[in-house]
């Protein structure tokens, strides 16, 4: 699966306003809603479910990355928003470090395989120090979009 298949480029926030975990989750879910990707789904309900999931086990995987996610009937396909924070956010990450890049994912209830494929793609890239650095250095939504599209077009990079 490619980034362009599930990342909503209209819901990319190069400088997050929120400074805490719950605020960042809300900000990204709202941006997906504004981009029309939640359909009739209730944004508040999705935010709550996502925070609940996060409290069970942090999705702050280390190396400045968090991938909050939830399954919800509002979406028929996997959809993701991306946010960046230059100040860093406390996500209770596994390595106890701050998080600078957040990839928030909403997956449909009945397609676990698609969710896994999106995760596979995300982590293949986030493994790469170069990719993490480029993502963090991106100043605008356009720069993030072109970084992801470039990654899509060059699987070997």
């Amino acid at each position, binding site marked *: 699966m490619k980034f362009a298949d599930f990342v909503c480029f209209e819901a990319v926030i190069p400088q997050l306003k929120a400074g805490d975990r719950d605020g960042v989750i809300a900000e990204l879910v709202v941006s997906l809603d504004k981009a029309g990707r939640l359909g009739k789904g209730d944004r508040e309900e999705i935010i709550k479910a996502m925070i609940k999931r996060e409290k069970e086990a942090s999705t702050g995987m280390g190396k400045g990355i968090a991938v909050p996610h939830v399954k919800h009937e509002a979406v028929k396909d996997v959809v993701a928003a991306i946010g960046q924070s230059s100040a860093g956010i406390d996500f209770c990450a596994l390595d106890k470090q701050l998080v600078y890049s957040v990839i928030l994912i909403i997956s449909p209830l009945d397609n676990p395989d698609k969710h896994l494929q999106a995760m*596979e793609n995300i*982590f293949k890239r986030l493994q790469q120090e170069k990719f993490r650095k480029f993502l963090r250095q991106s100043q605008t939504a356009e720069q993030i979009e072109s970084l992801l599209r470039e990654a899509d077009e060059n699987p070997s990079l």
Partner: protein
Amino acid sequence: MQAGQNSLEKVICETEVEIKNADGLHMRPAMQFVDVANQFDCDVTVSNNENSVDGKSIMQMSMLAATCGTKLKIKAEGKDAQKAVNALQELVEEKHFDEPTPKV
């Protein structure tokens, strides 16, 4: 010299497991796997047809995208390799990560 050679001996254990829970190896099961793997001193490598990854790294395990029905090879190298492989096999195939298996 002889005793020394003995302790240097490298134990390698390998097995194949099948993912049984319906949702596959998503983040929570992957974390369980990594937690169990980290209880042992041996190195743990997990591979599908495409990739071989470090079974003690959550990021790398998430890269496997192992759906329900996927077969993975677990390879452990080190003194406690056999114990590690047994524990991981039990987690994946018997406990299936304490998650439901597909409805038939």
